[in-house]
């Protein structure tokens, strides 16, 4: 094989069990074809929080949240004195204002919130003289300026939220608002019908553009994002993923058709396939839903409906993100408030872990006890990525086992590294909380995924994703931070 180009496929929310079942039942022939012709790891681990903006930023930069700066779908911006919401739910968008959500996602996420100290795969490939494409992916920063061209309805809906331009890779496609040079797919979203398919955000549109770009040899690397699996899995639960992946597979098959036959395509084009996170089933019971503003009812808290409101005027702000929550405490009153905040959270039914930074290290508390840890250069115990940790307390908090100088935390994979990777980011708040399995935390607008599926926690159920690559030397035990370096290294080798 002489794979000069690469298609990087991210299927939102795809869990390994569903992937394998879809492949082995014959319902995902295209994914099976890629799997049979490359390497496959069933237990690749998503960064924590296992939520799309944080995880996709890691997928596109190769960095953890503490480095790339994106903690989740929603967080409280202390400097701006308001909640940042990249598009949690229609209800939260109404409370925040649709324009504000669009401004945060399209304008701020890539241009301001994504750290300038990290380079996206597009920026790295551009520096190597290569052309890349991003199709409907949330994090797309690149060096080329693109005009935002909303249709009249979007212009009316989002008014001042839309920036005039965004910077992305040379070939940038973002739903209906930014369309790169490919004209071949302009009609596809009106052909297939249905409300979601009227938008170019549809997976079928992304597949069409990818196919077209491959045929025109318009890009060396195409990031092809399929989001519909996650959407349906939220609504109908993770069990729906096998059906969803069957649909996703049809779109991947269309891409594999680009060079005439799948075999011919694979001769020329490398494929890397993964997900941003998995999903857990959420209980049908109303009492399995945690509402952080209700939890902090006795505190003077910042509420999203207040708009801009500095935390200095209040005690606390809390941002629910599905199966993770970020809690921000007034810095001036922190010493006075801290114990009361922690005790309040410990009393909440359904919360699994509370975690925070403390004196250069990290603390995790649950009903199973408390653990403290810090990263060290030498000594301590090593995790599966080779990081070393000094640990004290009850390993049961992360279901850890230490054997022969190594720590394993299979129910909370790579627990120490992933916890550190978010707690080192101030934007994730002073305390990060995760609910137990089958429990969910309401978002900013009070919406949840009761009876469906959700994700974002440290638990294995939210975290294990498949990783496939037809490129040489794939990472043996990949996490989402290992994908971009793998692809960039492929092109480095080609250029030598």
């Amino acid at each position, binding site marked *: 094989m002489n794979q000069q180009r690469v298609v990087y496929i991210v299927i939102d929310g795809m869990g390994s*069990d569903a992937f394998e079942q879809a492949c082995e039942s014959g319902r995902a022939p295209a994914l099976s074809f890629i799997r049979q012709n490359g390497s496959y790891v069933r237990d690749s681990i998503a960064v924590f929080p296992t939520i799309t903006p944080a995880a996709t930023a890691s997928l596109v930069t190769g960095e953890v949240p503490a480095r790339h700066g994106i903690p989740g779908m929603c967080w409280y911006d202390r400097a701006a004195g308001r909640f940042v919401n990249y598009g949690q739910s229609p209800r939260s968008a109404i409370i925040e204002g649709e324009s504000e959500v669009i401004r945060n996602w399209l304008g701020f996420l890539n241009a301001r919130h994504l750290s300038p100290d990290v380079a996206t795969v597009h920026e790295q490939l551009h520096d190597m003289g290569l052309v890349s494409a991003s199709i409907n992916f949330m994090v797309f920063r690149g060096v080329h300026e693109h005009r935002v061209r909303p249709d009249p309805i979007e212009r009316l809906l989002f008014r001042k939220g839309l920036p005039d331009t965004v910077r992305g890779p040379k070939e940038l496609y973002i739903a209906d608002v930014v369309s790169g040079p490919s004209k071949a797919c302009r009609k596809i979203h009106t052909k297939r019908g249905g409300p979601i398919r009227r938008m170019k955000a549809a997976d079928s549109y992304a597949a069409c553009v990818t196919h077209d770009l491959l045929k025109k040899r318009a890009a060396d690397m195409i990031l092809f994002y399929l989001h519909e699996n996650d959407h349906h899995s939220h609504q109908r639960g993770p069990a729906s993923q096998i059906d969803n992946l069957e649909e996703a597979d049809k779109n991947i098959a269309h891409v594999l058709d680009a060079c005439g036959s799948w075999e011919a395509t694979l001769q020329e084009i490398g494929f890397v396939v993964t997900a941003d996170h998995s999903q857990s089933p959420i*209980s049908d*019971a109303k009492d399995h839903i945690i509402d952080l503003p209700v939890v902090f009812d006795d505190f003077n808290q910042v509420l999203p409906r207040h708009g801009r409101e500095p935390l200095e005027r209040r005690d606390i702000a809390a941002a629910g993100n599905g199966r993770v929550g970020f809690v921000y405490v007034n810095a001036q009153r922190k010493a006075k408030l801290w114990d009361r905040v922690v005790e309040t959270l410990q009393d909440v039914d359904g919360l699994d872990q509370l975690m925070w930074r403390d004196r250069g290290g990290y603390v995790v508390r649950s009903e199973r006890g408390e653990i403290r840890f810090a990263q060290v250069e030498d000594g301590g115990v090593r995790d599966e990525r080779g990081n070393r940790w000094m640990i004290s307390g009850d390993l049961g908090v992360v279901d850890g086992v230490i054997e022969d100088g190594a720590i394993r935390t299979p129910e909370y994979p790579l627990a120490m590294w992933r916890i550190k990777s978010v707690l080192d980011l101030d934007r994730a708040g002073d305390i990060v909380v995760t609910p137990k399995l089958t429990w969910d935390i309401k978002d900013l607008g009070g919406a949840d995924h009761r009876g469906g599926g959700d994700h974002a926690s440290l638990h294995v159920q939210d975290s294990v994703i498949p990783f496939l690559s037809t490129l040489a030397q794939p990472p043996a035990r990949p996490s989402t931070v290992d994908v971009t370096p793998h692809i960039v290294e492929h092109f480095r080798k080609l250029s030598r």
Partner: protein
Amino acid sequence: MHADRLTARGVAIRAAPLPYRLNYGLRTTSGWITTQLRVQSSGAGWWRFLYLERSADGAWSCTTKSEGDLDAPPPGGATSSLAEAFDCDLGECPLTNSMPVLRSNILAQGAGEPYDITAALVSVPDLVVQPSPQRYSWARQDGLDVWLGFQSGLFDAEIEFDRQGLVRHYPGLAHRVAPP
């Protein structure tokens, strides 16, 4: 595995008569008392999920999800009947025999009174939960290995354990091929 508790994660795959894949995660607290069992089973066209949790005051709760057509009763069951249970017994999983054996101390004590328990029996792959009276009794010893009699309803077997309390040989079900 710790001095008095364990955490486990496992996979079971069965080809016939009904092909399925089953993933589970199990957690005990000190005293080998099960606090959490999550099980996900799936086959052609169906998927089931069970999350059993025992609170500190001994109350069991159960959350289930299912999708597709499996010709079996719905997953889960009445948790009120599990009030006396300290253990889960996951069908066709030799690991879940360890907790009652370790808690009873029967391996150290040797021959003596049988140890009677009620386990929360989780049948597979349907993930139906029901109380199951079970009995462990000393049978014989050979070196460091111990055979215990195990009775559950009409089922009766001699199971071989090592000194750690882990199953070495479960007739008709499992044989350990490497040390843990």
